């Protein structure tokens, strides 16, 4: 008799079922961490220039470059739509931007085998600045017309926050691997 590679749910033992749920719940962790970071950026700090880094974008970039399977484009879409609703940007701006970032990062990192920290940071910086410019145009498309300057200021703080988000993502990944 040929056993299928994955047995159906009712044929499994309790342990196997628990393991399955555990594995499934682990796939939710990156998205949950990313959304928590987005909520954290709504901290009630009022400065006239947007200095709070775009942690959601950073988290998406970091997950995509280190664990591409855990941040597929559709998940980036869900994260982006959440970010739009939570931060008050017109719905669709981040929901388009984040999947596009994921696709771009996947395409490019498939061509580079360099895995040096400085290189990753530089690459992420380029993506962040590019994303700021694209976001500027997307916002203008939905009717929020403004200068590019504030977005670039935020891009700089986002680039500076890269090491912190990498450290957080690394911790979460280590916990996931140990679990």
């Amino acid at each position, binding site marked *: 008799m040929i056993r299928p590679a994955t047995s159906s749910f009712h044929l499994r033992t309790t342990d196997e079922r628990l393991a399955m749920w555990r594995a499934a719940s682990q796939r939710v962790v990156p998205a949950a961490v990313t959304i928590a970071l987005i909520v954290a950026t*709504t901290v*009630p700090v009022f400065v006239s220039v947007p200095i709070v880094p775009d942690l959601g974008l950073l988290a998406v970039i970091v997950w995509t470059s280190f664990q591409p399977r855990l941040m597929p*484009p559709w998940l980036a879409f869900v994260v982006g739509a959440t970010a739009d609703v939570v*931060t008050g940007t017109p719905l669709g701006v981040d929901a*388009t931007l984040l999947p596009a970032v994921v696709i771009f990062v996947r395409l490019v990192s498939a061509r580079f085998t360099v895995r040096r920290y400085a290189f990753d940071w530089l690459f992420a910086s380029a993506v962040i600045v590019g994303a700021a410019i694209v976001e500027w145009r997307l916002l203008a498309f939905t009717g929020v017309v403004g200068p590019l300057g*504030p*977005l670039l200021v935020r891009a700089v703080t986002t680039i500076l926050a890269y090491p912190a988000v990498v450290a957080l993502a690394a911790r979460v990944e280590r916990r996931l691997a140990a679990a």
Partner: protein
Amino acid sequence: MDWPQKRRTSFARREQNLALIGAVVTGAVLATGLLLLVLSRINPAYTTRLRGTAVDLVAPFWASIRKPFDALSGGLDRVGDYIGIVPRLRQLTADNIALRRAVQDRDAVAAENRALRRLVAVAAPRLDLVTIARFAGSSSGSYVRSAMIAAGTRNGVFSGQAVRADAGLVGRTTEAGDHAARILLLTDPTSRVPVIVVRTGQAALAVGAAGPLLAIRDRAGAEVPLKRGDRLVTSGAGGLFAPQIPVAEVVDVSDTPRARPFADPGALDFVAVYRVYLPVPEAPVALTAVPVPREARKK
């Protein structure tokens, strides 16, 4: 009898199929994002309910996180109050005497104003306070400058109400959930407030510019120059904001004049929400009730 055996698929074929499905899903996701963008462009209000819920979820989070910090800073303030108390008390006593005199003058002027208004039968709508609420979140999202307050439809806060602090106008509510609402700040690029220059009486628009300052646009009688320190107050045009709320002070008198808002959201804890000053009538005004020149009438 067994089912006819399926054609064996190789791993390469499986990978190929997965890649194809992945590409289709990716394309669909991007298309959905673009569709949402177009919807946002056509009708920005279609997500009102969803946004209200999101505000409800996020604002209590910050309201509870702020509590210990507020308590701490309140305690420190109480200690600080005792330092340098005597000179401050003298200063306040002197101020109080001057202010009492000013209040008496003001009362006299107000009484005179009331009498004159009664004489010419000016109809003044009432200015209704809805609630006083605490700031509970901001948007750092790009340059959409908004804030969240911890009061929602349960407290009578709805979309499109005026929000002010004692120093001046803060903005207007744009989304309301059950227990929280979002405020569009004056500095948001989509914010436009009809104002009057107090010294000259010129009408203008105070437009957000995604920075600390507001741009002054469409000023009536632009040949009369502005001065630094000119005060801008709401004109009441449009009916959302009541007239005479302080808005900003002119700081730049170049060709593109700029003004600094009186109310700095960074220095605020509580704001007051006011009902719409002149609500839009529920039913559209019947055209027959409006005098129309005979030439323009339909035959």
